[in-house]
C-alpha cells in the first residue's frame, strides 16, 4: 500500500480525499439537521450546467461552475423565502433544467472531447495541482466561515424563526449556508462526481448523528468518518481496481449502516 504513494497522482488524490472528505462532512452536519439534502443534490446537478458553460466559453469550468451554483443557491434561497412555490418543486425544476442545459451545451460542442464520465462520477486519480489549490482554498474558506458563524448557523438550523426574533439576520445566514454548500459541492466534483457528491455531505453526518447527542461531537465524528471513508476508499479502489468515487460512497454507507446498529440512541426506532 505504501508503494502506491510513490506516485505523485496518488499523493494528490490522497490530499484531495482528505480535504474534501473533511469539509463536506463538517458543513454536512448543518445540511442534514436542516433537511437540505435534496437542495444539495439539486445544486450538485446544477453544477453540470456550470461546467458546460465554462467549456463552451473556453474558461476554467470550475470558475463558471462556482458562479453558476452560487446563482442557483441564491435562487433556491429566494424561492424558499417567498414560499409561493414549494421548495422541493423549485429544486426539482432547477435540478433537471440546469442539467439539461449542460447536456445541450455539450451536444453543441461537436468534436470537443469533454470528460463527461469524469464530471459525473469523479476522477480523483486525475486531480491536478491546480485542482488541489482550488480545494485547499475552498476548504480553508469554508472552515473559517464555519468557525466564525458556528453558533449563528446552529441557531438558524435549529429554529430559524426564533433566531430572527432574537435579532439574528436569519435569512442571510440561511443564504450563507446554501452558498457554503454550493462552494463545497463544486470543489468536490473532481473527487466523487456530480452524481455522488451529495453522498459525502449527507452520509458521514447522518452516521455521526446516530452516535452522539452533542452537536460539536457530531461535527468532529462526521469529519472523522468523512476523511476516513475518502482516504480508505481511495486505497481500496486502487487495490481492487474499481471506481474511487463509488468505493468511497459505498464505504461511507457501510459506516452509516453500522452506526445504526451500534447507535446507543436507537434514533431509527424513535422515528
Amino acid at each position, binding site marked *: 500500500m505504501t508503494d502506491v504513494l510513490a506516485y505523485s497522482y496518488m499523493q494528490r488524490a490522497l490530499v484531495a480525499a482528505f480535504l474534501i472528505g473533511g469539509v463536506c462532512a463538517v458543513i454536512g452536519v448543518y445540511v442534514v*439537521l436542516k433537511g437540505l439534502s435534496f437542495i444539495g443534490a439539486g445544486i450538485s446537478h446544477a453544477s453540470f450546467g456550470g461546467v458546460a458553460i465554462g467549456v463552451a466559453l473556453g474558461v476554467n469550468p470550475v470558475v463558471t461552475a462556482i458562479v453558476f451554483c452560487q446563482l442557483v443557491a441564491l435562487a433556491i434561497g429566494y424561492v424558499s423565502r417567498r414560499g409561493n412555490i414549494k421548495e422541493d418543486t423549485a429544486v426539482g425544476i432547477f435540478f433537471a433544467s440546469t442539467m439539461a442545459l449542460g447536456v445541450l451545451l455539450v451536444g453543441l460542442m461537436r468534436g470537443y472531447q469533454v470528460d463527461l464520465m469524469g464530471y459525473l462520477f469523479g476522477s480523483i486519480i486525475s486531480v491536478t495541482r491546480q485542482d488541489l489549490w482550488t480545494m485547499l482554498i475552498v476548504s480553508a474558506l469554508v472552515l473559517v466561515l464555519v468557525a466564525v458563524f458556528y*453558533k*449563528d448557523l446552529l441557531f438558524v438550523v*435549529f429554529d430559524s424563526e*426564533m433566531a430572527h*426574533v432574537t*435579532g*439574528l439576520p436569519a435569512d442571510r445566514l440561511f443564504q450563507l449556508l446554501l452558498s457554503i454548500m454550493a462552494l463545497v459541492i463544486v470543489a468536490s466534483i473532481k473527487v466523487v462526481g456530480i452524481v455522488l457528491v451529495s453522498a459525502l455531505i449527507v452520509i458521514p453526518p447522518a452516521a455521526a448523528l446516530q452516535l452522539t447527542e*452533542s*452537536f460539536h461531537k457530531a461535527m468532529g465524528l462526521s469529519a472523522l468518518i468523512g476523511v476516513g471513508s475518502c482516504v480508505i476508499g481511495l486505497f481500496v479502489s486502487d487495490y481492487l481496481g474499481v471506481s474511487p468515487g463509488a468505493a468511497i460512497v459505498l464505504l461511507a454507507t457501510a459506516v452509516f449502516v453500522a452506526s445504526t446498529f451500534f447507535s446507543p440512541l436507537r434514533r431509527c426506532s424513535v422515528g
Partner: protein
Amino acid sequence: MNPQVTHIVELSHVTVSYNGAVVLDDVSLTVNKGDFIAVIGPNGAGKTTLLKVILGLIKPDSGKVLVFGQPSQMLGLERAKIGYVPQIAAIDLRFPITVFEAVLMGTYGQLGVGKRPRETHRQAALAALERVGIGDLAQRPIGRLSAGQRQRVFIARALVNNPELLLLDEPTTGVDAATTTSFYTLLRQLKEQGMTIMLVTHDIGVVATYVDSVACLNRSLFAHCRPDEIQCTEALRAMYGCDVAYLHHGEAPHIVVEEHK
C-alpha cells in the same frame, strides 16, 4: 427607548390575509406596560398570526403595529426586550443540543453574528433555567424531556435576556394540570416583577383566574376586558362553562363552542 412609552404594543386597524383569505380583520389593540393579557379564541382565529405580526415575522396588509414605539418591521435593539415562546410543534426534538445550549441561544441575537457567548451569557442561561425550576436539567439533551419540562426550556430561553415583554403561544398545550398551575403562578410572579405578558390560548378556563384582561379574537377582536367582566358564574366555571359564558358575552361567535368539543 422613550421613557414615556407606556404603550408596549400598539396595533391599529391591522389586517392580514394569506392567499386571499382574511386571517386578521381590522384588529386594534393596545397593551400597556405591566399588563398581563390573554388572547383567546378558537383554532384558526388568527391568534398565532397576531403574535407574529407583533414580532415582525408577518407584515400586515394594512394597519400600523408599534412595539416599544417602533414599527414591528423595523425592530432592532428592541428585540432584546422581547421574549417569545413559540408553539412546541415547530421544534425538531432529536436535535443534538442540551437544555443549556438551547437556552443560551436566546442570547445570540443580542450578542451579534460571529461573537462567542461569554461567562455572563452562560450565567444568564443558568439563571433563567433556575428561574423556571429546571436548573438540574441543564446538561440533558432536549429530546429527553417531558412536555412540561420542554416548555420550561423554551420559557427559560425567552427569559434569558430579562425581557420587558413576554409573548407566549399556547404555552400549556400538552402540559399536565399541576404543571399548568405552577406555570401560571410563575407568569404571575413575572408580572409582579414588572414584566408585560401577552399569551394566546384557546383554554380560557384556567387563564381567566390569572390574567388582568382577556381579548376575544376570531379574525376580528370581539372584546377586550377584565376576565370578571365576562359573565361567568362559579358554577359554570366549574363545569368548564366559560365557553358558555363566552357565548352569553354577546359578540363572540358560537363557533367557539363547536371548536372546543
